[in-house]
């Protein structure tokens, strides 16, 4: 019974204390890429250990390891199944289906929204003089955003933004948005949105989604910093943030994004003066992420773990 217990313990640790610690740590701002890897490892290992704990517990009476137990169960080598084990197996199947369905639903819904928004943008915007093929939206509000997609992506800037920023600040914005597109940040964001959608009662799921959103912005900032000096990027962030004088109030806005970005702009500005995490430490974080993924995998599959049963 070691494997189910160990997996359950890991699942609990990854559902609450570990992500909580990570979301409170200050180092992720110094190495957003490594922190993003760690967040993804936590999410995947968390799901794997949750499902794995139920699965190994349910299959324990049928064989020494996952493979033989499944074969025995399917070929009917076993004539009786305890209700606890059956319950655990149903739980594993339901949880797996729930997570996958939510992921699928989030992808489909996002794609529909994305396509609708893209159609509107294409009708309402015109090609701009801004380098990088950004579309120009005839609106006084200073906004810049990108709409990343698997097949086509567009970057949109508003007339208000073009008026507000000089050429180098505009370059910072464009490079930032281009990073979102080329590094496919939308894939990571969608995965964490799906995680939050499937487990909304998890205290940490919302925080994780918010943290990942912020790390992605920092990563894009770092790409922009290769093309422009830090000061220019900082000025662009401040100008665009300060230009927002008409926040659109919406029900649920405060809960969702309102408060989140209060710290986001500040965090993005203050990290510009801080040295990035040293390489060895960064490698350590990535190694921890790999280890995190390896533990539940080994517990699930390895015959060594099975021998402990």
């Amino acid at each position, binding site marked *: 019974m070691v494997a189910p217990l160990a997996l359950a313990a890991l699942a609990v640790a990854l559902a609450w204390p570990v992500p909580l610690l990570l979301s409170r740590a200050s180092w992720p701002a110094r190495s957003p890429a490594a922190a993003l890897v760690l967040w993804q490892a936590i999410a995947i290992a968390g799901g794997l250990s949750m499902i794995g704990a139920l699965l190994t517990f349910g299959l324990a009476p049928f064989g020494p390891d996952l493979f033989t137990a499944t074969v025995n169960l399917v070929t009917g080598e076993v004539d009786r199944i305890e209700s606890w084990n059956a319950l655990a197996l149903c739980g594993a199947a339901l949880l797996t289906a729930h997570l996958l369905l939510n992921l699928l639903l989030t992808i489909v819904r996002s794609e529909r929204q994305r396509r609708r928004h893209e159609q509107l943008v294409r009708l309402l915007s*015109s090609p701009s003089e801004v380098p990088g093929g950004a579309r120009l939206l005839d609106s006084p509000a200073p906004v810049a*955003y990108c*709409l990343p997609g698997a097949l086509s992506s567009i970057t949109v800037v508003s007339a208000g933004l073009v008026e507000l920023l000089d050429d180098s600040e505009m370059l910072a914005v464009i490079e930032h948005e281009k990073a979102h597109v080329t590094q496919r940040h939308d894939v990571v964001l969608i995965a964490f949105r799906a995680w939050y959608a499937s487990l909304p009662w998890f205290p940490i799921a919302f925080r994780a989604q918010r943290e990942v959103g912020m790390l992605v912005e920092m990563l894009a900032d770092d790409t922009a910093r290769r093309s422009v000096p830090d000061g220019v990027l900082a000025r662009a962030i401040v100008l665009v943030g300060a230009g927002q004088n008409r926040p659109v109030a919406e029900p649920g806005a405060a809960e969702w994004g309102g408060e989140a*970005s209060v710290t986001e702009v500040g965090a993005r500005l203050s990290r510009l003066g801080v040295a990035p995490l040293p390489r060895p430490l960064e490698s350590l974080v990535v190694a921890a992420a790999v280890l995190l993924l390896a533990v539940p995998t080994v517990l699930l599959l390895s015959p060594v773990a099975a021998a402990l049963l």
Partner: protein
Amino acid sequence: MATLGELERSIMERLWATDETLSAYDLQEALADRKLASTTILTVLSRLENKGFVTRSRDARPHRYSAAASREEHMADLMHEVLGGASDRTAVLERFVGQVSPEEAETLRRLLGR
């Protein structure tokens, strides 16, 4: 591919500019400098109809088309999506600077010294 999108845009601009309904031939005439076949215009119109941007009245022959909503209404919709705080609907787009609270906008303005 840019041409199809640009064509959709020019046709919408024409429909937005008038209160009257237009037929494919009216549009062909209005866009005469582009030398478009009427079938091309009909294709684009039916694409726009499928997307819900254009409504078609079948009472008359040839069919007459009009914009489903004004340019301003669409623009307001779009900006609401971009600026709105409810990120469930705006989750698909990645803004350079997300929504900022009025207090923080004030702080940033002070930082700029104005």
